[in-house]
């Protein structure tokens, strides 16, 4: 028997009838709210998010802050280093680098987000169907196998080859790049989604829902989808920078958006010839912006991953 006296000070018997039985007394915290709170606590994730918001802000308002457009040429004021008039300097055609840099941000962000969204939708559909049908009779397995064969083949084609070939067939431009990037890009999302579904499908609550006669649609929407959301969002934060990177890369080898449209990749490519003659600002600003965006997305994604992963919550 425990000593009674030592516990009296800590515990007191509950008066009967003071509390209702099984009453929920604390406000419920939804998973989303809890995750959001954890993201806010993660300094790196917040830093990344703030940088991204700043880049977004300047992408929208930056070009309007100066009286030059991204395509205005003026040979008289070519190759100027940054000063009070041209904050980021000018290029060899006298185009204002500030306007071009932020206009390029629009192009890069649009391509990144659009390509990532297409990847998401196609990847969810293919991965979802594949994962859900697996183990559901002969037909189900066949569908799963067929889809996974396609994914496997696409996965082992170097994406750049497909992209380059497509860019040659279609007219170079913003949407061509988006399409070219998504044609191979959805594969990794599909793999992730399928893996997740296979895993979640095995769990008791799905089996319970099935036994209770919940229709397929409801199981997918209410049980499978919410449980994958974290991983999908994290995957998105890595897909977007990859697409931005790929665009910069394509523009850099001359297959990206065409002049006079600026993107960070084309600007860096243009600067390559003059880097040795000391015009550092030509490479620095687009290069710095690409790096900063990559950094912000990666840091934000990492933070998000930690925050959404319940196993790591206590670390």
């Amino acid at each position, binding site marked *: 028997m425990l000593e009674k006296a030592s516990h009296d000070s800590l515990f007191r018997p509950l008066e009967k009838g003071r509390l209702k039985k099984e009453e929920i007394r604390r406000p419920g915290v939804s998973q989303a709210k809890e995750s959001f709170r954890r993201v806010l606590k993660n300094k790196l994730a917040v830093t990344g998010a703030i940088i991204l918001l700043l880049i977004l802000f300047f992408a929208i308002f930056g070009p309007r802050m100066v009286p030059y457009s991204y395509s205005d040429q003026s040979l008289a004021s070519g190759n100027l280093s940054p000063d009070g008039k041209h904050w980021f300097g000018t290029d060899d055609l006298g185009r204002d680098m500030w306007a071009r840099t932020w206009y390029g941000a629009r192009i890069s962000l649009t391509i990144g987000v659009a390509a990532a969204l297409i990847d998401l939708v196609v990847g969810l559909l293919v991965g979802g169907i594949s994962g859900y049908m697996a183990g559901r009779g002969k037909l189900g397995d066949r569908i799963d196998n067929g889809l*996974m*064969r396609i*994914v*496997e*083949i696409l*996965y*082992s*084609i*170097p*994406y*750049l*080859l*497909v992209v*380059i*070939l*497509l860019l*040659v*067939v279609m007219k170079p431009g913003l949407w061509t790049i988006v399409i070219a990037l998504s044609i191979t890009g959805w594969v990794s999302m599909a*793999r992730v989604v*399928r*893996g997740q579904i*296979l895993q979640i499908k095995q769990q008791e609550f799905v089996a319970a829902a099935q036994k209770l006669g919940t229709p397929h649609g409801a199981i997918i929407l209410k049980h499978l989808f919410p449980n994958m959301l974290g991983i999908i969002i994290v995957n998105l934060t890595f897909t977007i920078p990859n697409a931005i*990177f790929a665009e*910069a*890369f394509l523009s*850099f*080898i*001359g297959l990206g958006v065409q002049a006079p449209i600026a993107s960070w990749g084309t600007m*860096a*490519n243009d*600067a*390559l010839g003059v*880097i*040795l003659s000391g015009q550092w600002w030509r*490479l620095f600003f687009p*290069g710095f912006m*690409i*790096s*900063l965006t*990559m*950094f912000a997305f*990666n*840091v934000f994604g990492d933070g998000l991953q930690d925050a959404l992963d319940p196993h790591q919550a206590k670390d």
Partner: protein
Amino acid sequence: MKFILKRLLTMLLTIWVITTLTFVIMHTIPGDPFSSDSDVLPEEVLNNMRAKFNLDKPLPFQYLLYLKNLASFDLGPSIESETRNVNTLIAEGLPVSALLGFQALVIALVFGLILGIIASLFHNRTIDYAAMTIAILGISVPSFILAPLMIKVFAVQWGMLPVASWGTWKHTILPSVALAAGPLAIIARFTRSSMLEVLKQNYMKTADAKGLGAAGIVVKHGIRNAIIPVVSFMGPLVAHLLTGTFVIEKIFAIPGLGKYFVDSIFNRDYPVILGTTIFFSVVLIVTLFLIDLSYRLIDPRIKLSSRGD
């Protein structure tokens, strides 16, 4: 054995799909290798040239002929270069690109692993933060930004290394490092997080308890278990190095394979486009296959299965 056979069949199928796709896409592009010469040369000459490369034959015939030659590893003539065929182009460019890629791979693996392991052993200490800062910088700065910066600093300002071009071993240093930086950072991060996971395991405590020294624990029990995620990254890594060489070879004016590939697209040099595409795909596919095989060597618990998951 059954697994290996099945995989080999899938690989052949993949290569066939790639060949067919490339062939179809290539021929839907308006124009042909000679359409840019049409104002310089008379039509009869152009038609003769087309006939020489079988371009006047119906497409299905050209396609079957190509497949037939491909089966005997003959990638056909180059239209642009009169003296060399695609096989010789690859034979000339490959050693250059392969050396570059191999050096980058070694740099990325060695330094990535070291950085990741050190970071994990000093978890949440200054060394860890420093290593991870380097890693995240490596991921953030694209190779085509890093390379010009390195040229500027090491070649122009300090004059330690040649600016560009190819020849001596000194020429290979800057391009290899520029190519390796991104993969190095990713490997370091993978290694760190999987080492952290492994260090928590009970068998690590057992190894410690039975008196195995710190080095022994890390090498024998730690790295071997932590390396699986790193190995599975090797596939994307090789793909990354392949595509990375395009840009690096352009920046450093290196006569490798990537240059031929990009040039061939702009020249509509059909056999070179097909040949280099197939070659790159084969390299990637074979790498993916070898990686799958190596899992088993590293971790005998992993069973080979033909399913893709």
